[in-house]
C-alpha cells in the first residue's frame, strides 16, 4: 500500500485575514476511500483543489501537498500538467457547470486523449468505451450531443467517465452528487464505489452529508473552519464521536425514525382546511410544447395537520405549493382553502390580501427570499402594518417581538439581509410569513439550502411555532427524513402525479408503490449496515 496523497500542515489564507485552512493534515492510500466532511465553507473544496495545484490566486500557502511524491504546491506547470494527465482526476460538484456547454460530449471526453497522441477515431472509440463503462447506453449517439441535451445524472456519469479515461491512481470527488436527486445520487454513488473497488484507486470524497460519507468511505476526516477536528474509521467517528462538534453534526443529520413521526390530527366531522381535487397545471413552453407540471392532484389537509410533499426534482412539488398560495392559477381542478373555492383566474389585490391571512409561504433560497434593501425589522413591520393595521412604531414593536420569538435578537432588527447568515434569514422569512397570522404555512424546501446543524435548528423552530400558533403545515421537500420528523401525512409525487399518499408511518414502513420504495431505498446506508439496500 502506497501513499497517494499526503497533505501535511497545509495552511492557506489571504494576508490580513484569518486563514481559510489551518494546518490541515490528511492522507489517502492506495485503494482506500476517504471522506472529507464538514459544513459549507469549512474548506473542503480548498483542500481538495490544492491536491492538484488549483489554488486561489494570490493566496498565501504553507505546508506540503504531495501526490505520489510530487509537491503540487511548488511543482512546475509542466509537472503539474503531467500529473493531471496521468495520475489524478477530479470530479466536480455540478456537472452542468463543469462541462463546456457549447461543445459536444465526445469533444469533452476526447480533448485530453488527443494530446496523448490518439487519432480522432481512436479517441472517439475510447470515449465510447468509457461512456459504456459508466453505464450509459447509446454511447455513440451521446458523443454527438451537447450537455444541455442530457440530464444531470447522465452528465455526472460523463464527468466520471472523463475522470476515469486516464486510469488515474487517485480520484478526487468534490460533492459529486449534491446537485442530483436521491435516486440519481444512489446510482452515481454505487458507480463510484464499484469503479474505485475495481480499479483499486485511492479516492478522496468530499461531502457535507454524513450518511453519504458513511455509505462510501472507510475513513473520514471532519473539517471545521479550516481545521481537521476529528478523523478515523468512519464507523468509529459516526457511532462514537469524540468531539462535541462531530457529535452535534451526527445528531443534526436527519434520519428516518418512525417512532418520532408526529401524531395525526383528527378533526371530527370538520371541513378540511385545504382540499384539492383534480388539480392540474400545464405550461406552454416557448417551443410549442405543453408541459404538465401537475397532473390531476387530489388531497385534503385538515386544520392543524401537517402534510409532507416529497418527490424528485421536477416532480411538481413547488408547482403544487405555488398553486396553494395562488402564485399560479390552476389550469384545471378545484382548490378549496378554509371553505372558500379558489376562482380560476388571477386574484385581485383585495382577494389576495384576504387570502394572505389564510396561507403563507417560505421559500427555499435564504439569499433570495428577502428584499436586499429593507432592514429585516422593517420588512416584518410592513406586514404588520398591512394586515394588522398597526401604526409605524407599533408595527415595529410587534416585529421585534415576533423576530425575538424566532430567535433573531433585537439588535439584529436593523440589519440588512446580507448581514445575516442563511439560517437567520430563513428565520426572518418565517417571521414575515407568520406576521400575517396565516392558518396554513407552506414551506417549499425551506431548509434544503441550509447546513445540517442549521437545518435542525430551523426544523425545531418550525415545530415549535406550529404548536404555538396552531399552524397547519404543508412541507415540500425531497428529503424523506425531514418529512418523517415533521409531517404526520405524506404525499409522494412523480412526474407531476401523486403516486401515493397516506400516513407517514405507513408509507415509510410499507410503501405500496414501486416508485416510493425506490425513493426510500435510494437513501445512502452506512457501509457497516448489514442490511442490503433494496435494489
Amino acid at each position, binding site marked *: 500500500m502506497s501513499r497517494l496523497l499526503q497533505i501535511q500542515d497545509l495552511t492557506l489564507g489571504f494576508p490580513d485575514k484569518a486563514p481559510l485552512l489551518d494546518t490541515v493534515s490528511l492522507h489517502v492510500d492506495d485503494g482506500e476511500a476517504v471522506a472529507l466532511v464538514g459544513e459549507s465553507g469549512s474548506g473542503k473544496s480548498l483542500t481538495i483543489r490544492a491536491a492538484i495545484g488549483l489554488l486561489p490566486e494570490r493566496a498565501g500557502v504553507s505546508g506540503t501537498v504531495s501526490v505520489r511524491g510530487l509537491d503540487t504546491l511548488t511543482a512546475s506547470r509542466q509537472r503539474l500538467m503531467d500529473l493531471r494527465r496521468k495520475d489524478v482526476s477530479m470530479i466536480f460538484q455540478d456537472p452542468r457547470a463543469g462541462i463546456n456547454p457549447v461543445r459536444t460530449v465526445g469533444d469533452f471526453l476526447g480533448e485530453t486523449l488527443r494530446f496523448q497522441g490518439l487519432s480522432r477515431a481512436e479517441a472517439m472509440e475510447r470515449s465510447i468505451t468509457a461512456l459504456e463503462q459508466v453505464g450509459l447506453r447509446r454511447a455513440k449517439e451521446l458523443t454527438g450531443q451537447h450537455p444541455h441535451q442530457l440530464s444531470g445524472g447522465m452528465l455526472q456519469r460523463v464527468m466520471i467517465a472523463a475522470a476515469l479515461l486516464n486510469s488515474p491512481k487517485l480520484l478526487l470527488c468534490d460533492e459529486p452528487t449534491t446537485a442530483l436527486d436521491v435516486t440519481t445520487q444512489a446510482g452515481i454513488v454505487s458507480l463510484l464505489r464499484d469503479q474505485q473497488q475495481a480499479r483499486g484507486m485511492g479516492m478522496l470524497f468530499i461531502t457535507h452529508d454524513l450518511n453519504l460519507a458513511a455509505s462510501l468511505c472507510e475513513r473520514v476526516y471532519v473539517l471545521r473552519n479550516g481545521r481537521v477536528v476529528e478523523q478515523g474509521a468512519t464507523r468509529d467517528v459516526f457511532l462514537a464521536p469524540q468531539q462535541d462538534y462531530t457529535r452535534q453534526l451526527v445528531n443534526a443529520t436527519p434520519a428516518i425514525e418512525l417512532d418520532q413521526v408526529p401524531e395525526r390530527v383528527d378533526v371530527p366531522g370538520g371541513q378540511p382546511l385545504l382540499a384539492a381535487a383534480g388539480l392540474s397545471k400545464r405550461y406552454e413552453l416557448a417551443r410549442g410544447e405543453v408541459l404538465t407540471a401537475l397532473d390531476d392532484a387530489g388531497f385534503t389537509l385538515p386544520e392543524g395537520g401537517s402534510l409532507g410533499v416529497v418527490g424528485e426534482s421536477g416532480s411538481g412539488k413547488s408547482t403544487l405549493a405555488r398553486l396553494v398560495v395562488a402564485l399560479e392559477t390552476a389550469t384545471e381542478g378545484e382548490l378549496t382553502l378554509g371553505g372558500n373555492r379558489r376562482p380560476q383566474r388571477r386574484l385581485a*389585490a383585495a382577494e389576495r390580501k384576504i387570502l394572505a391571512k389564510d396561507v*403563507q409561504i417560505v421559500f427555499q433560497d435564504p439569499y433570495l427570499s428577502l*428584499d436586499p434593501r429593507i432592514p429585516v425589522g422593517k420588512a416584518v413591520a410592513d406586514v404588520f402594518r*398591512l394586515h394588522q393595521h398597526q401604526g409605524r412604531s407599533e408595527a415595529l414593536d410587534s416585529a421585534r417581538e415576533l423576530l425575538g420569538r424566532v430567535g433573531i435578537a433585537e439588535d439584529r432588527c436593523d440589519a440588512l439581509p446580507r448581514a445575516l447568515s442563511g439560517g437567520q434569514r430563513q428565520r426572518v422569512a418565517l417571521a414575515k*410569513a407568520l406576521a400575517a397570522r396565516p392558518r396554513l404555512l407552506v414551506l417549499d424546501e425551506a431548509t434544503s439550502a441550509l447546513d445540517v446543524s442549521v437545518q435542525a435548528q430551523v426544523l425545531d423552530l418550525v415545530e415549535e411555532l406550529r404548536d404555538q400558533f396552531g399552524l397547519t403545515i404543508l412541507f415540500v421537500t425531497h428529503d424523506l427524513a425531514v418529512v418523517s420528523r415533521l409531517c404526520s401525512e405524506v404525499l409522494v409525487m412523480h412526474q407531476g402525479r401523486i403516486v401515493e399518499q397516506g400516513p407517514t408511518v405507513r408509507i415509510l414502513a410499507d410503501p405500496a408503490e414501486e416508485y416510493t420504495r425506490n425513493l426510500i431505498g435510494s437513501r445512502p446506508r452506512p457501509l457497516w449496515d448489514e442490511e442490503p439496500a433494496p435494489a
Partner: protein
Amino acid sequence: MTLTLRLPQQAGLRRYGQLLSPLGWAALLFTALVVFLAVFAPVLAPYDPDYVDLNNVLAGPGAGHLLGTDALGRDLLSRLMHGGRTALLGPTLVMIGSTVLGLLLGLAAGWSQGLLGRLLSRFFDLLFAFPALLLAMLAIALFGKGLTAPIIAMTIAYVPYVARLTQSLVAAERGRPYVQAYQVLGFRTPWVVLSRVLPNLMPTVGAQSTLNFGYVLADLAALSFIGLGVQPPTSDWGAMIEESRGALLGGHLLPAFWPALVIVLVVVAVNILGEELSDRIGGKLA
C-alpha cells in the same frame, strides 16, 4: 454606439452602496467641478464669452487669459465654461428623459409578460435599429438645426437602452422569491413594483444611464462639430473645436485642444463613474 449593460450574473442586487475607488472619486470630483463651472459660468467666467478682441487674437495662455484666446480674441476659458452649459445640458436632458421613459416602459414590459410585454419588447427592438446619432440627424433634417430636435430624438433613441435593461432586471426580479413573498403577503402590485422593486434596480439602471450620458455628450459634440447641432455663436465644446480647426493650420493648437480635452476627460470621468457603479452594484462585469 452603445450597448446595454448585461444582466448581473447572480443576485447582484445584494451588494451596493459601497464607496467609490480613488479613481472613481477623482472622476466624481472632476465631473462635479465641470458642472459647477458650467452652471455658474455667468458669474465665474472672467470674460463675456462672445466679446471679440481683434487686437488679441490667438494669444497663448497668460495672465490676461488663463487658457489663451481664439482666432477672434475671445477668452477660451470663458467660452469653455459657457460652452459647458450647452454641452452638458443636452446629455443631462437626454439622460433624465430616457431614464424616466425607459424605466416606465421597462417596468411595464418586464412586469406584464403577456402581450403588452411582447409588444413593448418589439418596440424596443425597433428603436434599437435607429442609432441615436441617425435619429438625431433625421430630426434635424425635419425640424432644422439646433439642440431641441436632436435632444428629443436622442432621448427617444436611448429609451430602449434603459428600457431593455429595466425589463430584464424586472423580469428577473419578478421571479425572485422576495417579490413573490410580497405578492403572497397581499401587498398591492403597484406598491411592490414602485417602492420595492424599482429602488433595487435603480443603481444598475443608473449605471447604464451614466454611461449613456457619456455617449450622448460625444454624439452631440459630433453633431455640433459637423455643423448640425448647436449653432454659433453659442459656445459649445464641439462647435469650439470646429471653429478652431482653422487655427490649427497656423500652428495654434490650444483653441481646439482645450475643448477636445474637456470632452475626452468628461466622457472618461463619466464612464469611470458608470463602470464603478455597475461594477459595485451589478456584480463584477468589467
